[in-house]
């Protein structure tokens, strides 16, 4: 334990103190000599030395200041208080002056030392706070609403990607916000200034390099001076959390797609087996029949029996296929008066997350007062959902222009209800336009090519049509028309 006391650090510190002491004593001696030569009286000399020591106490610690103070008193009593050249002091007034100087010096040194300790503690706590903010990606801010002043911590500046020299303003915050989040955020900030409650919101930032950050902001009004309206809060960079969530969602989507593909695979295998069985029997019977006919003499009775079995086998295969078709057509179709716009809004609700994630700008052009159509609501939803998902996926690769999705409803020139889904994706070439509605035709990796084929058969089952065409200026448009003659 003793060795530790004399560790390099503490011995260096002790040496520093001794040096401070020595320097102070030298300064004291020089000043005492000057005062003595100038033949100053006790009061003046005391004042001069006191000024020196108060100055030194700014940099020295308490112990050094105390030693120097005692030395100064000694020097004053030796050179300036009668009897001279003795530490003895005759005059009570002189003694009182010396004691006063000592008390003042010690008091000043004590206050100084305490100040320094508080300052150090404050600095450390600030350092811890800044470090904790950096580690947790959480910045803090204060907002004096009345004066319109914002105060940001270092981490808040870092999250917003701004230099500390910039003075933060609400305009800067809005400028940094993602273009799609700007208007709702501005509206919210307007409310924040009026309502007294706890705020908790999430929005995105668009950084100058085009990257997106997700942030969560929590804030609450604090009790300040009367007439002041001040909010204090935290800004959390939750980009990493959002990204992890996104990856998990993606993994789930991949899994469900894999399941679907597997289901189709199993279905195909069982259909193949069901159809294979009677065909295998027919082939075997046919082989037997050939044998009976080729025998010498030909056995016509056996051959006829074999042919009879072949007919039976053929009919069995047809029955199997009809049974499968019956299963697939079993989707119950219900007809109710439905509002197409309502169906579209539901589909938007289902796909909103997907659209936001892929930075797709949705434009709704839904005609007001459309008549109701008699249709199967679930099937309508399937068709529109399929068209919207296709449009969103088609725009995944678009980077050089905005990803615009237009959902349009209205009555077309032929007096039919018309739903259009327009995208700004790469569009479809002539060859693809002809084939996209065929079963098992797909341009997507992982697609099974049934979506549009099923969508078109649903449209036709409702007496409507589903067609694709090039969109202007770019992309594709899918037009789904429904007759109104059965309108409710």
């Amino acid at each position, binding site marked *: 334990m003793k060795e530790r006391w004399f560790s390099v650090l503490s011995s260096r510190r002790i040496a520093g103190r001794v040096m401070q002491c020595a320097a102070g004593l030298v300064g004291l001696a020089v000043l005492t000599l000057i005062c003595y030569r100038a033949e100053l009286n006790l009061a003046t000399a005391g004042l001069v030395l006191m000024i020196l020591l108060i100055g030194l106490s700014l940099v020295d610690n308490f112990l050094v200041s105390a030693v120097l103070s005692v030395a100064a008193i000694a020097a004053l009593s030796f050179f300036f208080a009668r009897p001279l050249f003795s530490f003895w002091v005759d005059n009570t007034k002189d003694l009182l002056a010396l004691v006063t100087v000592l008390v003042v010096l010690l008091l000043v040194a004590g206050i100084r030392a305490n100040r320094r300790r508080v300052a150090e503690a404050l600095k450390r706590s600030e350092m811890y706070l800044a470090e904790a903010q950096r580690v947790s990606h959480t910045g803090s801010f204060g907002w004096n609403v009345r004066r319109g002043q914002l105060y940001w911590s270092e981490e808040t500046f870092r999250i917003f990607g701004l230099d500390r020299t910039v003075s933060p303003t609400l305009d800067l915050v809005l400028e940094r916000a993602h273009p799609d989040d700007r208007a709702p955020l501005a509206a919210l900030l307007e409310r924040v200034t009026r309502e007294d409650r706890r705020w908790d919101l999430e929005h995105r930032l668009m950084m100058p390099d085009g990257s997106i950050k997700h942030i969560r902001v929590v804030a609450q009004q604090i009790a300040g001076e009367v007439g002041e309206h001040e909010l204090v809060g935290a800004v959390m960079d939750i980009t990493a959390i959002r990204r992890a969530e996104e990856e998990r969602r993606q993994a789930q989507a991949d899994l469900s797609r894999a399941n679907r593909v597997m289901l189709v695979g199993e279905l195909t295998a069982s259909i193949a*087996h069901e159809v294979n069985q009677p065909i295998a*029997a027919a082939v*075997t019977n046919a082989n*037997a029949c050939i*044998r*009976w006919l080729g025998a010498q003499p030909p056995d016509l009775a056996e051959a006829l029996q074999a042919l009879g079995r072949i007919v039976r086998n053929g009919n*069995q295969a047809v029955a199997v296929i009809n049974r499968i078709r019956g299963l697939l057509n079993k989707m119950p179709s219900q007809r109710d008066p439905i509002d197409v716009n309502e169906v579209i809004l539901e589909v938007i609700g289902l796909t909103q997350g997907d659209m936001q994630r892929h930075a797709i700008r949705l434009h709704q052009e839904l005609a007001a007062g459309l008549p109701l159509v008699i249709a199967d609501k679930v099937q309508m939803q399937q068709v529109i959902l399929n068209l919207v998902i296709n449009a969103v996926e088609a725009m995944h690769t678009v980077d050089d222009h905005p990803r615009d999705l237009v959902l349009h409803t209205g009555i077309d020139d032929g007096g039919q209800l018309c739903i259009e889904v327009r995208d700004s994706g790469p569009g479809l070439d002539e060859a693809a336009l002809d084939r996209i509605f065929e079963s098992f035709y797909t341009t997507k990796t992982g697609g099974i090519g049934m979506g549009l084929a099923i969508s078109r058969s649903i449209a036709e089952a409702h007496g409507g049509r589903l067609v694709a065409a090039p969109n202007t200026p770019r992309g594709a448009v899918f037009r789904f028309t429904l007759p109104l003659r059965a309108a409710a």
Partner: protein
Amino acid sequence: VAHEQVISIVDDDAEMREALTALLRSLGFTAIAFARAQDFLQSTAPSTSSCLISDMKMPSMSGIELHRQLVGAGYMIPTILITAYPDDQTRADALKSGVICYLPKPFAEERLMACIRTALTRRIQGGTSP
């Protein structure tokens, strides 16, 4: 062409059973058909058959399981497996267990005939049944 050879058929599909029996008869064999593997095992057929043609996938006992039971009981009947669900893994397992042929349905008569010929040669080389 008189073979005087008995070939047993085990298949749960009645149509296939009937068709195969007729084909084997037209080829000059005596064919006996069973709907279940257990029925075949409980009959005298295991000791009288020169060859077994069995479906692979059946409700209570699969073709390969039947073959293994026969081998376990000491019957050296050359076996041909037929299946509507061909897959490479089962094929490898079957051939490793000593099955002569693994035929996907529907099969060509020539292929079946070639398998039967191999089976019968194997039987002669393999000696007598117990």
